[in-house]
C-alpha cells in the first residue's frame, strides 16, 4: 500500500478533515481543520473531494517520505517547501517521486499549513471522521516520527490548475469582525468598549481548542453563575481572569463562562492563523 512515512513533525502535526458535526448530544464537538478555507484549497488543488483527510502542520517542521509517486499541495501559512531538497511553491500542485522527502519548513507568517496528497490520508475514521480532536481525544493520535499514513486511491477528477492565487496570511495586527452576544449584557459598557476599542495579543497558551488573549480586562456587571451552555467556534468566552479566550476547532461542546462576542464565520480561518505574539483587533 502506498503511504507517507512521517520522519519529523514539528511542534504539532495532525490528520484533519471537515470534522464530525451532529454529535454534540453525546458530548462530541465538530473538530476538523482549523483553517477550513486553506484545507479545502489543498484538496481542490490535488483533485480530491474537499473533505478528504490531509495533514495540518502547526508552525512547520513536518518531514514525510512518499513510498510511491504522489501528487501533493501545501496551503495555509506560507512556508518554505522542499521536495528532496529542491524548493517548491506553496498553493501549487507538487509532483513527489517515489522515495522523495517533502519538508514543510517554518512559516514566515501565519501558523497552520496543510499538506494534502491526491487520494487523501486514509486512516481509519472515528465516528465518521478522520479529524484529530485534541480536547476530546478522538481520532488518530497526533503524528509522531515513524508513523505510516496510508494514502487512498486517487479520485477520478484530475488537478485542474497548477497554482492558486491566494492572499498571504496577514503579518502584524489582524482585524476580526465580531457580533456582540450572546451574553454581552453580562458585561459592563466599558468592557464592550474595550473589546472593540483596543487590541489583544495572542498568548502562547493557545492551541486548537482556543487562543488565550491578553489585553484590557473585560469586567462583568453580573456575577451570578451561568449554567453551562452550548458554545460555537469563534466565541469569545470570558473566564474569571477577565481576559477572553477565542474558541477554535476543538472547542468544548459546552462552557460555563459568559460569551461577550462571537467572531463571524468568514473570519474564523484568519483567526486560526494568528500566532502567539500577534495582535488582534475586534471590529463590530
Amino acid at each position, binding site marked *: 500500500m502506498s503511504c507517507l512515512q512521517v520522519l519529523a513533525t514539528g511542534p504539532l502535526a495532525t490528520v484533519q478533515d471537515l470534522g464530525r*458535526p*451532529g*454529535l*454534540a*448530544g*453525546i*458530548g*462530541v464537538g*465538530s473538530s476538523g481543520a482549523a483553517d477550513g478555507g486553506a484545507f479545502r484549497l489543498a484538496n481542490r488543488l490535488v483533485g480530491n473531494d474537499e473533505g478528504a483527510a490531509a495533514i495540518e502542520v502547526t508552525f512547520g517542521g513536518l518531514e514525510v517520505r512518499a513510498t510511491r509517486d504522489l501528487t501533493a499541495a501545501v496551503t495555509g501559512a506560507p512556508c518554505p517547501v522542499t521536495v528532496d531538497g529542491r524548493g517548491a511553491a506553496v498553493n501549487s500542485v507538487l509532483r513527489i517521486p517515489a522515495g522523495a522527502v517533502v519538508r514543510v519548513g517554518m512559516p514566515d507568517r501565519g501558523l497552520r499549513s496543510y499538506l494534502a496528497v491526491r487520494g487523501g490520508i486514509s486512516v481509519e475514521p*472515528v*465516528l465518521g471522521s478522520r479529524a484529530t480532536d485534541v480536547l*476530546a*481525544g*478522538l481520532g488518530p493520535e497526533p503524528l509522531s516520527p515513524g508513523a505510516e499514513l496510508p494514502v487512498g486511491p486517487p479520485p477520478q477528477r484530475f488537478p485542474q490548475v497548477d497554482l492558486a492565487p491566494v492572499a498571504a496570511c496577514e503579518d502584524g495586527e489582524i482585524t476580526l469582525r*465580531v*457580533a456582540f*452576544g*450572546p*451574553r454581552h449584557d453580562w458585561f459592563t459598557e466599558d468592557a464592550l468598549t474595550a473589546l472593540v476599542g483596543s487590541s489583544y495579543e495572542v498568548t502562547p497558551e493557545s492551541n486548537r481548542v482556543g487562543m488565550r488573549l491578553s489585553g484590557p480586562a473585560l469586567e462583568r456587571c453580573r456575577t451570578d453563575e451561568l*449554567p*453551562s*451552555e*452550548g*458554545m*460555537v*467556534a*469563534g*466565541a469569545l468566552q470570558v473566564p474569571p481572569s477577565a481576559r477572553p479566550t477565542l474558541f477554535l476547532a476543538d472547542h*468544548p*461542546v*459546552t462552557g460555563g463562562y459568559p*460569551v461577550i*462576542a*462571537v*467572531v*463571524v*464565520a*468568514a473570519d474564523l480561518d484568519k483567526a486560526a492563523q494568528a500566532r502567539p505574539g500577534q495582535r488582534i483587533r475586534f471590529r463590530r
Partner: protein
Amino acid sequence: MRFLRCADSGLLVELADLEAVQALYAALVEAPPEGVTDLVPAARTLLLHLDPQRADVAAIEAAVRAVEPRGTAGGDGALVEVPVVYDGADLAEVAKLTGLTEREVVDRHTSAVWTVVFGGFAPGFGYLAGGPPELAVPRRVESRTKVPPGSVGLAGAFSGIYPRESPGGWQLIGRTDLEVWRVDRNPPALLRPGVRVRFQEVR
C-alpha cells in the same frame, strides 16, 4: 423563549427550565430546520449550530417558535442499569452536605430513575437529572486534576459518570466498571439524551 445570536454561527434559545429544553430538543432533533448542523441541549438553553451559508435565521426562529413541544426527551428511552461500588472519596462529604447518612445517600441514589438530559464536558458524559432533590450538592471547592474513569459523581441536581480519566470537580460517591463510552461500539455513548438510568449497588 428568548433568542440570542452567536454571530452567524449559532442561535442560542433560552428557555424557562430543563423540561422546556428537553421538549424543544426532542422535537428539533427529529426535524432540524434547514441550515441547522447540530443541537446542544443544556440546563436552560438549546444551542443551534448554524451553517452560515444555508441558515436563514429569521426562518429558523419562526420554525422554533412553531414547534409543538414533546413531553419526552429524544432518544430511544432505553433503561441502562449501572452497577456501582459506593466507596467514593467524597461520600462522607456528601452525607455531611445533605444531612443524610452515607447509607441514605446510597439508597436515594439507587432508588431513583435518572434520565440523561444532555451531554457535554467529555465524549460520552451524560448529565443525569431526575434524582431526589436531597442529593443536590455543590461542586467541590477544589477540582481534582485526575478523576479515574468510571467515577460516579454528583454536582448540583445532576449525577454523572466520568467516561475517561479527566480533571473534574464533581463529588465522587462511587465507581462503576461499566464502559459508558467506546468508539468501536454503536452507539458509542451508553448515556445519550433520553436514556434512563438506574444505579445498582454492588459490594
